[in-house]
């Protein structure tokens, strides 16, 4: 007869039964708690709030010495065993996939007791305890395991040697969670752990194989030395067992094997580089995308780790129809957010370098899909959509066609400038930076959508990455823009804000601010007046920043800004001269000489260009300026560079020298 009673005791009632003196009542109550929380996150939370975890942990602690002999079969010892088993199972369930639960279990001091109980004679107890510990080690909150202590390494080895799946699985989980540094990886190798894990790969059960694959990947990560020691002497054999598992019947095993192989590929240039294995990995991962469960959610991330930054793999993936397949999955809709995010990031990697890939985006007409993703409720998805957009807008062909500067994209993108998540903001700014380079005259759409004003607001953000990215977007926005647009940007920014950004504490922000000025004053002589606004605030800021430039990039952008100013009229050129010769403290040498002597040829080029503009023969004050430069030793410094290895430098130097000869100099 079907039972479907819902008349359960209330949680608080259950918890009071836990304190009963009668072992049988206790066991029943523990079992009831366990059964209510398993699979039920809401219940875990409500029991947590009532203090269930310390209560159960307390019972575990009290009973820890009650089961010392496996031979007793009487009622008392049965109850003792059951108390341990049920309380361990309950604690394990609290910790399963639930960080608040893990924290509660750790705070209640249950961890050392669980470790002790691994030595208990009763099999069921050990099983339950090992499982609970495994759940804890699946969480980031698990205590760090110190592999470098001899005692700990021996304990780990004993765990891996156990015949019980849950115990050896625990050993593997500890490695996967806690092994981080190259030193730890080497220590594990030296203790023979890899050999043990390899034997689990070849002879173990399904869960042991999976756990081994994860641990091996952790030990191999970024450690070519350990990899070559592992794969070296028995050439090909250990690696071939992993390669075989990539074709295993179980999807999760295939995924973990691929991830392990990818870790090896990425760390070491000697292994798994032939085209056969590359193609195989691509095909297996693309096929895993079809898995409806968690494996399919994680597959795109593994795919990204395979192809990121690697043109050869992106080409192979393109030939394997990767882009079509990824798009097909997005079009299906109602994706799990993790899967959605993964696929978008995988597409971003595919579009990142090759124009042949980007042209697929346009032919498949997925602009609307991306626009939808920009408004998704999940922050990870929104950020991933922006990153994907940034990659695909690297296509100059399509930027110039004005393909992206339309309201479908710009409006949701501008809304993301106000997103509560900083990473989404930064990603949106990255995409915007490309879109606003739009070579047509449709930049006004961006202003109409309020984008320009938003960018200026973001330039005042507390987060330095947001400030520098906002400035980057503005810099690209004013690139070769018409005067009206530039004036709009400048009046929104104001001279005082721009000069304070030039003097920002963060070097990346300084660099972008200077580059923005460079683009603003470029082109029309009237725009040069910007730097003189409010008593030359901006010009002064540039000068002061160049005196103490902390990176070459700051020097380069600043010099080009000055170079553009120096392309103006007499007044402008004289102002630049004054700046170049301002003394700071006891520094006799102008920063100009320092830049000319720099190893960075871009910096030299920028500086020489400025000199070219200052000594341009058509302007009346040129001879006077040339004299000053000569007196400061700058001309002779330039003469020394006449045979500079960098072509740009050489050409500009010769221009300067040619110009100086026009004034009768030798």
């Amino acid at each position, binding site marked *: *007869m*079907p*039972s*479907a*009673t*819902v008349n359960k005791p209330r949680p608080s009632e259950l918890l009071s039964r836990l304190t009963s003196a009668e072992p049988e009542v206790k066991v029943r109550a523990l*079992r009831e708690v*366990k*059964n209510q929380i*398993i*699979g*039920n*996150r*809401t219940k875990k939370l409500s029991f947590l709030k009532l203090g269930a975890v310390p209560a159960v942990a307390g019972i575990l602690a009290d009973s820890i010495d009650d089961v010392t002999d496996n031979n007793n079969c009487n009622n008392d010892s049965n109850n003792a065993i059951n108390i341990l088993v049920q309380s361990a*199972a309950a604690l*394990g*369930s609290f910790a*399963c*996939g639930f960080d608040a639960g893990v924290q509660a279990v750790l705070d209640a001091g249950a961890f050392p007791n669980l470790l002790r109980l691994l030595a208990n004679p009763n099999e069921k107890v050990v099983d*339950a305890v090992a*499982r609970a510990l495994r*759940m804890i080690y699946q969480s980031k909150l698990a205590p760090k395991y110190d592999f470098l202590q001899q005692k700990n390494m021996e304990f780990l080895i004993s765990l891996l040697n156990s015949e019980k*799946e849950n115990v050896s699985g625990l050993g593997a989980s500890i490695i996967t969670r806690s092994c981080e540094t190259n030193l730890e990886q080497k220590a594990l190798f030296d203790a023979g752990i890899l050999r043990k894990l390899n034997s689990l790969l070849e002879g173990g*059960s*399904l*869960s042991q194989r999976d756990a081994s694959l994860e641990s091996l990947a952790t030990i191999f990560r970024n450690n070519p030395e350990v990899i070559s020691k592992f794969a070296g002497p028995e050439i090909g054999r250990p690696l071939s067992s992993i390669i075989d598992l990539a074709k295993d019947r179980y999807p999760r095993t295939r995924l973990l094997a691929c991830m392990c192989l990818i870790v090896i590929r990425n760390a070491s240039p000697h292994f798994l580089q032939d085209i056969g294995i590359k193609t195989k990995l691509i095909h297996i991962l693309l096929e895993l995308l079809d898995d409806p469960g968690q494996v399919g959610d994680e597959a795109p991330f593994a795919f990204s780790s395979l192809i990121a930054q690697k043109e050869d793999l992106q080409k192979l993936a393109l030939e394997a129809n990767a882009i079509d397949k990824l798009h097909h999955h997005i079009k299906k809709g*109602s994706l799990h957010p993790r899967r959605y995010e993964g696929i978008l990031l995988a597409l971003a990697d595919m579009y990142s370098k090759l124009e042949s890939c980007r042209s697929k985006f346009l032919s498949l007409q997925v602009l609307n899909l991306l626009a939808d993703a920009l408004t998704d409720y999940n922050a990870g998805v929104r950020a991933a959509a922006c990153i994907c957009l940034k990659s695909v807008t690297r296509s100059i062909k399509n930027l110039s066609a004005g393909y992206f500067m339309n309201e479908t994209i710009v409006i949701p993108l501008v809304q993301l400038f106000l997103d509560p998540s900083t990473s989404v903001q930064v990603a949106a700014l990255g995409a915007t930076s490309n879109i606003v380079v739009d070579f047509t005259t449709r930049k006004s759409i961006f202003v109409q959508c309020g984008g320009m004003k938003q960018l200026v607001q973001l330039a005042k953000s507390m987060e330095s990455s947001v400030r520098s990215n906002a400035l980057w977007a503005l810099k690209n926005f004013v690139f070769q823009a018409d005067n009206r647009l530039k004036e709009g940007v400048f009046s929104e920014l104001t001279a005082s804000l721009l000069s304070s950004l030039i003097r920002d504490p963060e070097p990346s922000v300084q660099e972008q601010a200077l580059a923005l000025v460079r683009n603003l004053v470029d082109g029309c002589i009237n725009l040069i007046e910007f730097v003189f606004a409010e008593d030359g605030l901006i010009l002064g800021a540039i000068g002061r920043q160049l005196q103490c430039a902390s990176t070459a990039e700051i020097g380069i952008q600043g010099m080009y800004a000055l170079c553009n100013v120096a392309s103006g009229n007499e007044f402008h050129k004289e102002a630049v001269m004054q700046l170049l010769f301002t003394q700071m403290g006891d520094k006799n040498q102008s920063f100009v000489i320092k830049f000319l002597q720099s190893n960075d040829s871009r910096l030299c080029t920028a500086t020489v260009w400025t000199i070219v503009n200052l000594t341009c023969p058509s302007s009346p004050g040129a001879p006077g300026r040339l004299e000053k430069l000569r007196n400061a030793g700058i001309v002779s410094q330039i003469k020394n560079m006449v045979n500079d290895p960098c072509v740009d430098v050489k050409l500009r130097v010769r221009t300067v020298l040619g110009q100086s000869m026009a004034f009768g100099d030798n």
Partner: protein
Amino acid sequence: MSLFWIVIRRLAEIEERMATSKKVITREEWEKRLNDVKIRKEDMNKLVMNFLVTEGYVEAAEKFRMESGTEPDIDLATISDRMAVKKAVQCGNVEDAIEKVNDLNPEILDTNPQLFFHLQQQRLIELIRNGKIEEALEFAQEELAPRGEENQTFLEELERTVSLLAFEDVSNCPLAELLDISQRLKIASEVNAAILTSQSHEKDPKLPSLLKMLIWAQNQLDEKAAYPRINNLSNATLEDPTV
């Protein structure tokens, strides 16, 4: 030019004739060839044992082991536990089944949200079947609604199930299939598979795969030859080739 076309036409005719003439194999010939193929008794015994064990026929497996000496690839004791769970679901004792699964391996339901949801859904269906409407509503609200919040697909399934309550005559409504016994069997099968997977055992027996292979191979052969076919898998009789 015309000689070229004559040759092409000739080759096309030859090919056509080759395509329509299939090799014919008589029953005598076929049975003779079959006899030449050797199959080991041990392999067949293993297949039978694998089927019995995976499907959960404990007593039959025990008897078969005693009579044939074939060792099962899984501990028969664990089969009884698994069968108890399956039986509980088939009888509609879902709560009991859940408790048994949790005793067997608490991880299964903790890491398998879909299975857990289906079991809880089945509990709701049983409450509705027994006319315990108030309890059903309370259960749906307390236990199932939070699951629906976590997952869009679950929410949709939940809404379907709860809408059963709207019908006066549940046995004749469009959602009647939910109340059918087959629904219980479906869930029972799902639980069975999950337990087998957690024990690192294959959740499907080998026998169906073999039969599928047979059907596929016959379909492939059909294009090349006319031969005695097995058309009825349950009695496996050879039917004469049509000439």
